[in-house]
């Protein structure tokens, strides 16, 4: 494991193998791997799932990157280990000052870790803004639908409000807005814009620091009204 981290360090720093290995041990220590000197000589299969992800983070941070991209970093991990890893990423981000792009399907993870959010659907962004604000008050029908469909461990819900239909094939995207076949608000847009025109990014009316790709004239009011009805 140490060798793999050292290799990344040596790719960008002209140092000897020994120096790189020392740096790797430091990194393993930093990400909370006990006994790093010894573990640096272990192979990945000798690590537990959580320890492997820690080592992976050490590898990602060894060259002090300005940007760290974490692609579903905790999806394969157990809940209690996931919490450890997310805490670790948060702590290290503060220490290193790296920016982080967290790619995940888990909105709850976003709620607890991210500053900003970009919600994507069928290859395009549909809503962006501050993570907490977007999740507290979504203004795109897809974001809204996702949030409505989520069961929570902190409250009892009568029925989950599912988004109908299935995600489209990327080989054969729907015309206009890719989400329109599954959108229940398309009838509230005048004309056939949802079917024919791909919406451009625009600020959400009535909200600051928020952009969406949606044809609804007043999405906030529309979605609020819908939530009231339920």
């Amino acid at each position, binding site marked *: 494991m140490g060798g793999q981290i050292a290799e*990344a360090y040596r790719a*960008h720093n002209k140092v000897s193998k020994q120096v790189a290995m020392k740096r790797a041990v430091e990194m393993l220590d930093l990400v909370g791997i006990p006994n790093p000197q010894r573990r640096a000589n272990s*192979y990945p299969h000798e690590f537990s799932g959580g320890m492997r992800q820690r080592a992976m983070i050490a*590898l990602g941070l060894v060259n002090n990157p300005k940007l760290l991209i974490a692609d579903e970093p905790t999806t394969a991990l157990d809940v209690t280990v996931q919490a450890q890893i997310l805490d670790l990423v948060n702590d290290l981000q503060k220490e290193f000052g790296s920016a982080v792009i967290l790619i995940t399907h888990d909105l709850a993870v976003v709620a607890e870790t991210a500053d900003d959010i970009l919600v994507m659907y069928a290859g395009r962004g549909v809503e962006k803004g501050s993570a907490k604000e977007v999740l507290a008050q979504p203004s795109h029908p897809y974001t809204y639908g996702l949030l409505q469909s989520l069961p929570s461990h902190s409250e009892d819900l009568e029925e989950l409000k599912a988004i109908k239909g299935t995600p489209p094939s990327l080989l054969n995207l729907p015309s206009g807005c890719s989400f329109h076949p599954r959108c229940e608000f398309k009838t509230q847009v005048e004309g056939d814009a949802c079917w024919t025109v791909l919406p451009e990014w625009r600020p959400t009316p009535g909200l600051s620091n928020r952009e969406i790709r949606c044809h609804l004239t007043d999405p906030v009011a529309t979605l609020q009204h819908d939530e009231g009805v339920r």
Partner: protein
Amino acid sequence: MLTYILRRSALALSVIMATLVSAFLLFFAGPSDPAQAMCPETKCNPARLEAITKSIGLDKPLIEQFLTYFKGLFVGRDFVYAGDTVHCGAPCLGFSFVTRRSVNEELFTRFPNTVVLALMAAVVFVTVGVTFGILAAVRRGSASDRGLVGASQVLGSIPYYVLALLVALYPVILWNVLPQYSAISAGVGPYFMGMLAPALILGLVTSASYVRYTRNSMIETLSMDYIRTARSKGISERTVLFKHGFRAAMSPIATILGLDIAALLTGTLITEQIFGVDGIGRRGLAALRSFDLPVIMGTVLIGAVVVVVMNLVVDIAYSFIDPRVRLS
């Protein structure tokens, strides 16, 4: 590691023993009648047949024959032939019914020829197959990839004996570009030159499948997440391909290679026959034709030992290639 090898060797020995017993039963208790085959057709009569049967010891009870054979393997045995007693030391594989020479001599003088042919062919197919396989994998989907895969399929779909016969006929016999096989007694240089033609054709044809094995294994390896990780480190593509990709891609190849070499070592029958290489494959074939049971048993035993040893070698090699494999 040592205990592992010891345990595996014990296991190997029992496999060889089982092969020995079943082969013995199959040939000696089977319907074949070597005496009949040895009896000259025109002058054969029951008395003569009986004499031959007695002279090669087939008149004894099966269990006694087996014990004699078994004893020969471990402590050696004596043969009485034309009034003389000849001692055959352990491991004694018996005496050929036909040539009346010791099977050890028959086979051990020929085995090196098979080994040389097999190893030379292996060098050819490993070099050619792995090189082009990696090339095809790295340039996946390109014209050179399609060309290589196509060529390997064409090569693989022509019956081997046709190709071997063509090579033996044109470059060797008609054009004299490549020398014919000659025994090592006629000189080391001509001996190896003579091996060139059979080794090349055997190696090239086998390399067709190695191109495909290597290509598939390499493509699978290159699609692994850890290759993506290696690339993300910013190291050169060369390092990614060879340090991270090649070694992992070679593990499955090592297994096939071990078994293929074992198969070749037990006799490259068609090649030896076509190019006149005096190896154990050719000798075994001759023995089969004349029901020369001791020689057949000898080739079977050598085959069993080779396969078992190669399997062990592959497993040990694996532990060096892949640290996840622990020999225990």
